[in-house]
């Protein structure tokens, strides 16, 4: 499985996870909020009745018949005519100073009456809320008397908790199924892309090989023509074009060399390599009138193939030589256990991200490059599990490599 495919699966599963979590969070949140709302409605009904349903209350039952119909499930929740018979609750009334307590109603089995009074005392300074997990309470005043009503909502909350657990289990199961499906879909989605990439690389590899001999033959025949008839504008133009083709072929030849299975892996002195590359290009920098400023920490090494490191530093130098207008900066340092290599130059480009420079055959505006140099850099850095980014900030093209 390649990295892009892994990324696709991870992103897809993350999106599914977020969507499912949000959906289930909304469903369960609304469910619990409605349960709390129902409980508050019941405590409010009790508050209107000074803390107790009248045992003979039948008005609600009369309404039940009217609300029924062919598609009706009948009144549910607080509207149920069974409410005054099925509710588990108690109400304790306190005098204004809270000294004397009297049980107004007691229809509950979980606690004794005296325990209920103690419980209510603990809630007297509150207003409304949940207590001891599944009990809802309301504190209210009527005619100078403070009432504390506590109702048991355990039976009503049980379906809510069941839905919550089933939702969580369902989400986990859905993610597992989605992951299994993505394994198949990812393969199907990425197989053609991988195939296209493989074909592109093969084409480039073959084209590179197939171009080399014709260029050599054309070059040789041009020489022969010049020897026979003397050089003219046509042969000179042919040579110029051959030189361009030769440069392109050299670049194409480098594609994939760092992916070779026989690549060497050793401690490469990157500081030395970069210094050597900059020193080696001193004349070329000077001929373009470029000021080179290097801040290179000594003795920085990376585990890599020396040849690829050589190519990478070479490409960075070539890129600066092509695009810099006045000044080129090279920085190499160790930071938080990572090797940080940064090149900057005043390439006069619009500000913003410039990550497209790493795409094969992609060049920035007004560039006459082949669009290959920095794609090697990216491939090399990727092969070392590093990161590379490019951006333009205040007219400075900044390329940053983390290894």
């Amino acid at each position, binding site marked *: 499985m390649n990295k892009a495919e892994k990324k696709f699966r991870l992103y897809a599963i993350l999106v599914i996870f977020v969507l499912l979590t949000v959906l289930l969070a909304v469903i369960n949140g609304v469910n619990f909020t409605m349960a709390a709302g129902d409980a508050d409605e019941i405590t409010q009904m009790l508050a209107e009745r000074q803390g107790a349903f009248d045992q003979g209350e039948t008005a609600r039952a009369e309404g039940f018949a009217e609300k029924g119909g062919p598609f009706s499930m009948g009144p549910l929740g607080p509207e149920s005519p069974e409410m005054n018979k099925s509710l588990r609750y108690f109400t304790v009334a306190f005098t204004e100073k809270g000294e004397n307590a009297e049980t107004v109603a007691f229809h509950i089995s979980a606690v004794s009456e005296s325990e209920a009074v103690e419980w209510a005392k603990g809630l007297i300074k509150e207003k409304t809320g949940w207590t001891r997990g599944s009990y809802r309470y309301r504190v209210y005043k009527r005619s100078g008397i403070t009432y504390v009503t506590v109702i048991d909502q355990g039976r009503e909350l049980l379906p809510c908790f069941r839905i919550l657990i089933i939702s969580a289990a369902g989400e986990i199961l859905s993610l597992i199924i989605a992951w299994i499906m993505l394994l198949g879909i990812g393969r199907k989605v990425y197989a053609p892309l991988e195939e296209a990439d493989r074909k592109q690389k093969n084409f480039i590899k073959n084209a*590179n090989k197939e171009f080399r*001999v014709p*260029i050599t*033959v054309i070059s040789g025949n041009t020489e022969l023509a010049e020897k026979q008839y003397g050089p003219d504008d046509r042969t000179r133009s042919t040579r110029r074009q051959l030189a361009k083709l030769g440069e392109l072929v050299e670049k194409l030849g480098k594609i994939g060399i760092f992916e070779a299975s026989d690549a*060497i892996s050793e401690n490469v002195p990157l500081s*030395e390599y970069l210094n050597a590359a900059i020193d*080696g290009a001193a004349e070329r920098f000077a001929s373009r009138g470029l000021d080179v400023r290097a801040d290179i920490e000594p003795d920085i090494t990376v585990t890599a193939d020396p040849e690829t490191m*050589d190519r990478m530093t070479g490409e960075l130098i070539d890129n600066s030589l092509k695009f810099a207008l006045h000044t080129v900066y090279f920085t190499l340092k160790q930071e938080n256990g990572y090797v940080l290599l940064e090149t900057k130059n005043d390439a006069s480009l619009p500000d913003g991200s410039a990550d497209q420079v790493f795409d094969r055959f992609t060049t920035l505006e007004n560039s006459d490059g082949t669009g290959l140099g920095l794609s090697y850099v990216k491939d090399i850095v990727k092969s070392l599990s590093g990161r590379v980014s490019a951006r333009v900030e205040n007219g400075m093209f900044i390329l940053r490599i983390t290894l």
Partner: protein
Amino acid sequence: MRILFASPERDLLECFKSLFDPDLGETVTAFDGTQVLYIIANEQFDAVIIDSALPRIGYREITEKANAKNTPIIVLTYGPVNPHMLSEENLPNDYLSFPFNSEMIFGAVKNVLAKKSSGEVIRVGDAEIDVSGFCIKNGPRVTATETDVFRAVVEGKAFPVDGRACVSSLNAKFAQAGLKTRIKYMTGKGFETVTENE
């Protein structure tokens, strides 16, 4: 001077034969490995140039035969020369990568022939390169380009193209020969030979 030039590309053979003959002497051409082996076994050449994509018999086997006959051989490659190519057991006297012009290929042939007849030995530290023998003393073979890179380092001169690959391969070959001499880049000084553990 007699040159054997082998490649499956007939246009290439014809073109370079026309370029070689007036300047170098006689050029014999061949377009597959079997032909090359037969010709080498029966004729004498000052140098052999073979395409690495030669059909039927590969360039490694031909290089082995040429080395055994002490005939200088240059292998034409389809990409840059890398340390793996330079570490081959049957190492040619040099590699030259397509595309090239007559100056480059003449230069490569002349360079190899000049080295073969030079009788020169380059000594630095415990390392000795037998230039005419194309080998490190008591060690593996080296190409003409590797020798040029080593000489450039010793004399403090600029590298030829693809010199870095030669630095890596030379260091590996010095290690293989049990030598302590290495080529290293010294900040502010460039490439120098150093003795390990110094």
